[in-house]
């Protein structure tokens, strides 16, 4: 600072500096909010948002492709039905041929010797069925008859697959399946043998829908949430609060929402979740100015000046949730389930962590082939607390929400 040239300047400077050196004016909450809302955002946050969008898009497109692939597979593809387990054997014997997509045939056939026997059963079944229901079945679009034109038994009771000629040249998969196998031919004494390559039929589809979905699924869910809080006022030096405008320390606050996406297998879900909700607390900060007003009586009224203050914090939580669905017995409603789990989230603005316990009850409906809609009521309880932006309050959250969940995938 350059010294003043005139004593008057120095006197003025000293006087003014003394008054203005520590002069402070508290900005209004609306002004502060405006500035903090418009301040430049972290590029890391931007990357995070972009990453979220990319992830959601990838999951969405992936599930759509999987869904379309399955649908087209069921509409037009000739799918050989193989029995690969005792359960499927029984279904074969009951007249319901299980469905396996072509790309899975090799694996299923090469599993074990039992599959050879099963395949034999399937052949015999198909033959019987073709005799009995050929006229009706041939009208069905999802059945493709393949004719075995010759069987050359190498031994009395068995025949190698390469010795079976298959007329349908399109059934390369079937030929590959049969090639390395040995079939018992005791029952194959009728030539030619017809094999029905069946696709989905109504009975199977109904059974599938009745089956509880424990396969791999891609999940998207949206949950409007109402947040309750247990508020703890943190001690602030030289700051007094009063007139909290809350009915109690435990009160309902603003609505928020939660978006989740992830995968489910055998009822276990791993979900990437993003949730957003606000907390708004109105109160007054008591100033140090007291006005003591003498009245006509000897008593004195003390008026305390308060500065209205709003503490508004928006929480953005990004985290992972692990949940498990337990389907209840079909006593009253089918596909009713209980849900429990936990989540770990990171508050993006203030870099705090929040662990949450989750319980809920819901119901699931099939809405399309390989697509399900679930509606559930969830209760989330915060296992730890979060501080507000101004570090004035600590909140423990309890959230209730009704989640809408779409899942795509095969049973």
């Amino acid at each position, binding site marked *: *600072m*350059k010294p003043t040239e005139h*004593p*008057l*300047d*120095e*006197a*003025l*400077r*000293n*006087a*003014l*500096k*003394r*008054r*203005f050196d520590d*002069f*402070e*004016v*508290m*900005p*209004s909450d609306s*002004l*502060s909010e*405006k*500035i*903090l809302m*418009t*301040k*430049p*955002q*972290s*590029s*890391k*946050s931007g990357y995070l948002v972009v990453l979220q969008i990319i992830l959601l898009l990838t999951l969405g497109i992936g599930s759509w492709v999987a869904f379309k692939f399955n649908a087209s597979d069921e509409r037009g593809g000739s799918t050989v039905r193989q029995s690969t387990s005792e359960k499927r054997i029984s279904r074969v014997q009951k007249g319901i041929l299980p469905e396996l997509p072509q790309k899975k045939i090799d694996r299923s056939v090469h599993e074990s010797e039992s599959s050879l026997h099963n395949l034999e059963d399937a052949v015999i079944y198909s033959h019987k069925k073709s005799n009995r229901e050929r006229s009706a079945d041939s009208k069905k679009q999802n059945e493709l008859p393949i004719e075995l034109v010759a069987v050359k038994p190498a031994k009395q009771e068995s025949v190698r697959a390469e010795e079976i000629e298959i007329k349908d040249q399109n059934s390369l998969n079937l030929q590959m399946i049969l090639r390395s196998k040995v079939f018992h031919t005791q029952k194959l004494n009728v030539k030619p043998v017809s094999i029905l390559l069946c696709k989905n039929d109504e009975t199977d589809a109904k059974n599938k829908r009745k089956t509880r979905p424990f396969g791999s699924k891609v999940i998207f869910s949206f949950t409007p949430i109402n947040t309750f809080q247990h508020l703890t006022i943190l001690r602030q030096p030289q700051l007094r609060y009063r007139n909290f405008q809350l009915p109690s320390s435990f009160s309902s606050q603003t609505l928020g929402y939660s978006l989740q996406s992830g995968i489910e297998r055998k009822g276990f879900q791993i979900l990437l979740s993003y949730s957003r909700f606000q907390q708004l607390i109105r109160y007054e900060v008591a100033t140090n100015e007291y006005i003591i007003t003498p009245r006509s009586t000897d008593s004195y009224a003390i008026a305390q000046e308060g500065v209205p203050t709003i503490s508004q914090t928006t929480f953005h939580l990004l985290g992972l949730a692990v949940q498990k669905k337990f389907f209840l017995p079909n006593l009253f409603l089918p596909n009713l389930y209980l849900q429990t789990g936990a989540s*770990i989230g*990171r508050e*993006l*603005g*203030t*870099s*705090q*962590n929040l*662990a949450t316990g989750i319980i809920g009850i819901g119901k699931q409906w099939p809405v399309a082939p390989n697509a399900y809609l679930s509606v559930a009521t969830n209760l989330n309880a915060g*296992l*730890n607390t979060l501080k507000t*932006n*101004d570090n004035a309050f600590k909140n423990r959250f309890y959230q209730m929400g009704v989640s809408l969940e779409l899942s795509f995938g095969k049973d």
Partner: protein
Amino acid sequence: MSLWPTKKYDNLPDLVRACQNQDAKAQTVLYERYKSRLLGTCVRYARSEAEAEDIFQESFLKVFASIGEVRQPESIDGWVKSVVVRTAINYYHRTTRNELKSAPFDDFGCEMENDEYEKIIGHMHMDALLGLINRLPDGYRVIINLHLIDGYTHAEIATLLSIAESTSRSQYMRGRNLLINRLKELGITHYETY
């Protein structure tokens, strides 16, 4: 439970570096640190509360946007204040500089002793003192603030305001005399009622 290390700003350089990385929490802490002091500065330079809030908002946006240019985080206090002062001057350039050119030439004599001004200013209510400064013509007000309160030299003021140093001096003299005259009136009134 802590999956990530909790961010702490143990000292001012840490806070500045976090702000340079556009850490949202650090920006909030920085705002909380300077908000009242800087709004006080804005109030001195502005004619009204609304104008002060405009300058204040613009200043903080500049602080957040330009904090990456700070090479010495220890000197952040002075840098932030200089941003506010420059923003106020720019605001003045945009809105009121023409008024300075056409401001009337007021010359006032100084009749009181030096220590009397200190007493008057020391006893004045802050609102009255602020009102006195705010009601000065724009050119005088800026130069009085810069030279008397914020300690800028006339050479620095000349650079900031894009005027000649002699103009700065003459404007300051006029502004000071006007201030003294009004102080004298207010001071006498204040003394009488005190």
